[in-house]
């Protein structure tokens, strides 16, 4: 069982290959560079290095967002097109869930998040139960302050994981104090091998129907809906 995992949903570009549940190779960069230019060469290089041809792939796992709309589409388009042409299953895993895997063995609520500008974040709440990661509160696009107020009310410890942690650390502390657990370093970056593992046992999506997990309408669409609602009272 050979799995190719790809994540271009945020600044990280991550590609990993798993063979029978074991990582056999990965490429990760965390730099501001164009995913569209670099994804396919990275996949090509990795497969070349481990001596695997595309026809040997059995499954593709892709981070489906939230994150950069364009980045998410680059990953999803590549994953869907490869899976369709090779006639193998594809699984989309939430980019937040993939990040939550970094705290999987921590006995607390796990809160992965991505900055979404103007005080907003893409986030969700996870915890590990029976050795499995499960969603406690739905993923959403929400004001960080509102979200922290809600987390405060739970009275529980919360592990925060985010590539944008520096931007929000102060605010998190001001609401949760010592109940906020904020690790250092690489824990805040999603790991493509975890993404591959996350998709290992998941039921495949319908290749055609797999769509990005934007968590937000296109601006024009949101405005149009508002107008329609006003019209219809």
């Amino acid at each position, binding site marked *: 069982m050979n799995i190719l995992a790809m994540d271009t949903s945020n600044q990280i570009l991550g590609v990993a290959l798993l063979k029978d549940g074991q990582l056999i190779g990965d490429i990760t960069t965390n730099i501001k560079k164009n995913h*569209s230019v670099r*994804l396919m060469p990275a996949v090509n290089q990795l497969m070349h290095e481990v001596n695997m041809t595309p026809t040997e792939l059995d499954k593709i796992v892709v981070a489906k967002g939230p994150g950069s709309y364009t980045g998410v*589409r680059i990953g999803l388009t590549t994953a869907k097109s490869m899976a*369709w*042409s090779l006639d193998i299953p594809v699984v989309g895993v939430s980019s937040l869930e993939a990040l939550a895997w970094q705290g999987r063995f921590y006995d607390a609520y796990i809160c992965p998040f991505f900055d979404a500008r103007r005080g907003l974040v893409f986030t969700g709440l996870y915890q590990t139960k029976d050795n499995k990661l499960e969603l406690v509160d739905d993923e959403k696009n929400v004001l960080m302050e509102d979200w922290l107020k809600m987390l405060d009310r739970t009275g529980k410890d919360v592990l925060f994981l985010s590539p944008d942690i520096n931007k929000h650390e102060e605010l998190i502390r001001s609401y949760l104090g010592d109940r906020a657990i904020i690790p250092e370093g690489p824990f805040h970056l999603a790991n493509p091998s975890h993404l591959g593992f996350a998709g290992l046992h998941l039921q495949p999506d319908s290749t055609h129907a797999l769509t990005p997990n934007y968590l937000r309408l296109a601006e024009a669409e949101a405005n*149009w809906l508002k107008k329609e609602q006003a019209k219809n009272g």
Partner: protein
Amino acid sequence: MGEFIMKTDNYILGIETSCDETAAAIVKNGKEIIANVVASQIDSHKRFGGVVPEVASRHHVEQITMVLEETFKKADMTWKQIDAVAVTEGPGLVGALLVGVNAAKALAFAKQKPLVGVHHIAGHIYANRFEREFEFPLLALIVSGGHTELVLMKEHGSYELIGETRDDAAGEAYDKVARVLELPYPGGPQIDRLAAEGEESIDFPRAWLDKDSFDFSFSGLKSSVINKTHNAAQRGENLDKHDIAASFQASVVDVLITKTWKAAEKYHVKQVIVAGGVAANQGLRQALTEKFKRTGIPLLVPPLKLCTDNAAMIAAAGFVSYKQGKRSGWDLNANPSLVLQ
């Protein structure tokens, strides 16, 4: 040495997502359409009064594999028979182009096929090759929402820009005038329809620019239509929309035809080709046909459904690049301002 297969035919898979059509096609030898599938998003964008880039990109990623599957089904072909994957790399909306480019790269990589990036306008020109074989030198007039260009071709795959718009594209002027006349989106076909019933009673300006220039300008004409309409409204007069449309279209067509004809004479071309979405315009088609009937230079205008964006034209242009040995790498990117060369 086992079986020896003479392979003389080439099949190219084309992909086009530069604006609001998700399209795929399979073309044989650059001139025969085997399958041509276009999923239009026009109904979705109508409510916004124009194409919204983010919405277009979202539709593309939802449609792409379905469009591909339908293409192979219609062609009744398998990947084994495909020689290369051609894709529009630009110009166009960057987010929209990215879906096609990344799909094409993924397919070419997965199936280990050569990848060929194609200029969208080269595609529009090659839409004509489904009708008739090219004879060089030929002159192409490209008119669309984003383009108004005169291109001279001395051989396959070689493009020399001899004239272009200095401001608005012809199609853009159509859209803006349509908005002033409060016509529904997309405005081009609406103006064309009104013009057919109107009379050319208003003398709108024609921008000839320098005497020998093959460049175009439509912003003055557009402003003139807007001013005339507003002034009339202020005086309480009611200008007939049909007449405005007819007069506006007459001005556009006059300039396009005159410059195309002059260029055709100067370069002694053997064919004149019309391409791009505005080539679907009836007024323009008729006027061009009449003009060139008298000059003796054969005029090629693609059938209506090949004037608008499609992937068959991308596969046809891609076939030429493929035969010339041009290949794109796995780092191929969308290029919204790609230059035709």
